[in-house]
């Protein structure tokens, strides 16, 4: 398709359509990216297994809906809770024993856990992609809610935007206003000082994993429902893209991760629409490599300092 040959109206519609798609997927990336960035903030570890938590969220949801017959709007918070528990377990089982080890050991553990969880899901739920039970979704999700410039926005789009927005605002409030948020920021700044001030560092880290796991799980459920496809390998690509988003925003910065997710989603949609849909995934990797090389601090971040034992 040669875009230049299209009429003005169709070009505008294509543009808006890509923007809508980009913001949808970008919001989902943002929700995963926030988890990466928060965990990096408190323990300076790229939690490669975070993408797997996202994948598990989708699988928990369809298990609840299909096997137990729980309605979608109940299954959503239930699966998020399960993901939060998984996140905490991951930290306790895999990362906590290595807190004082060098970074290399922790990174290798993170990769190992990611591969382990992915294959565990394959053993439990099978390796074939599964459809999301569409009957569980409310019927009006398919219907058009808003229509502008020839582009139709379904209620499902609005639901995803609404969820993303609510969670992001909620997360910001938790981090900025609550005691736990304050403790998290203190731990991110300096663990030793935080501990001296009477903060239970390990518990704060667990809370971070709870928040990250719940958000990642929600993202997984919404992706699974939106694209109607759930598979054990879905966490691997989404995880790397979300990490790219976190890097773009500046790792350690929560607003940065949100913005990074949206920018990356839109860039990917436009790249796939206008340049080449074959390199859809490549756009994220390309953006990530270029950002890391040119502006390693990201849009909002600080420059990482190499420390020998920072975990």
């Amino acid at each position, binding site marked *: 398709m040669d875009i230049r040959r299209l009429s003005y109206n169709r070009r505008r519609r294509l543009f808006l359509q890509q923007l809508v798609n980009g913001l949808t997927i970008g919001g989902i990336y943002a929700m995963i990216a926030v988890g990466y960035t928060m965990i990096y903030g408190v323990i300076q570890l790229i939690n490669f297994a975070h993408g797997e938590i996202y994948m598990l969220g989708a699988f928990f949801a369809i298990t609840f809906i299909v096997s137990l017959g729980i309605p979608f709007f109940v299954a959503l918070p239930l699966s998020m809770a399960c993901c939060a528990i998984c996140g905490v377990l991951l930290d306790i089982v895999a990362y906590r024993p290595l807190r004082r080890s060098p970074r*290399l050991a922790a990174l290798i553990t993170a*990769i*190992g856990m990611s591969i*382990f969880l992915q294959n565990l899901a394959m053993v439990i739920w099978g*390796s074939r992609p599964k459809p999301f039970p569409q009957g569980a979704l409310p019927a009006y999700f398919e219907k058009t809610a808003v229509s502008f410039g020839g582009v139709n926005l379904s209620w499902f789009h609005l639901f995803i935007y609404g969820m993303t927005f609510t969670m992001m605002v909620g997360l910001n409030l938790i981090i900025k206003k609550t005691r736990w948020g304050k403790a998290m920021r203190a731990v991110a700044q300096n663990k030793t000082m935080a501990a001296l001030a009477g903060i239970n560092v390990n518990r704060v880290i667990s809370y971070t994993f709870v928040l990250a796991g719940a958000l990642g799980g929600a993202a997984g459920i919404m992706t699974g429902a939106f694209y109607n496809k759930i598979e054990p390998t879905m966490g691997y690509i989404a995880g790397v893209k979300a990490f790219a988003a976190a890097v773009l925003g500046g790792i350690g910065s929560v607003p940065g991760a949100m913005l990074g997710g949206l920018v990356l989603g839109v860039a990917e949609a436009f790249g796939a629409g206008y340049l080449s849909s074959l390199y859809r995934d490549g756009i994220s*990797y390309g953006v990530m490599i270029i950002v890391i090389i040119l502006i390693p601090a990201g849009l909002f971040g600080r420059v990482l300092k190499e420390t020998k034992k920072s975990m």
Partner: protein
Amino acid sequence: MTRGAMIRIGFLILALIMPFLPFVTDYILHIVILIFLYMILALGLNIVPGFNGLLDLGYVGFYGIGAYTSGLLTYHFGLSYWVIIPLAFINGAIWGILLGAPTLRLTGDYFAIVTFGFSELVVLFLTNEIWLTRGPLGLPGIDVVSIDLSLLGGPKWEFIGELPYYYLAIVMVLVTVFVMHRIQNSRLGRAWFAIRDDEVAAVSCGIKLLTYKVIAFAISAAFGAVGGSFFARWVTFLSPDMFKFWESFLVLCMIVLGGMGNIWGVMIGAAILVSLSEVLRELLPLLGLPVGVRFLAFGLIMVLMMRYRPAGMLPISAVAAQMRAGRTKRKRLKPVSRA
């Protein structure tokens, strides 16, 4: 002669006569060649995490580059394998320098993730640039390795069956081990160990961090590419699926299991994991599970090794000390009795 040297020579003799032992079938020979191939790969990767303490998640990218270099040069130009080996080596090293020079000045985490992105881009390129690589259709019918003496009036001898490849693989492993051994005890190797043990101390001794890291990454990439070039001419078929992240993970797992930085440990790690992988490949379908699930075991191995023996089965003392750093138990203070 020391005991270690005798064991090594014993293994070498065993390897040389192995194809003629009565119970050895073509299948076993095939797997042993696979073990040798992964030994080359693991020894190559070992330079980056083992000698330099950096995590490289994109090793399979260079393996793929080497394989397709070899495959395409054979396919289009009919080059002899003996010309291709150095070309693959150089091509791997070039990509290593191109990727390493800008990214190795960053922290280790960023480096790990960039290498990962790079290897994914390589797979995407191999899949999508159909004009060059035939994409997902794969590259079939790559010529086998041959020794062509017709210019000198001699015969042309083609490598058919597993046996000639077996000996070719042994020679390549021996050369790789020799090179690694020499590097390890050279000025270059000592500089790398210094960087691994303490970067600040290394810089203050006048070691240029970036230069030495880029050299390490380039050599590692080059050996990955050489492994790939052998793979292409051995299986005579290439497809982009063969170069996914799993391979990087498998090679990394070999190093972690065997002992980072230890040449012999890494080779043993390769032997164990390739064998385990083949056993599981036979066993899993019997249990009704997909073959991919064998990575469950590999993931678990990595996590458990990091938890209990972070320096591997055959640890070298420097790595062991470093991996344990900060994990030593604090001395418990005796309570002071109040008089």
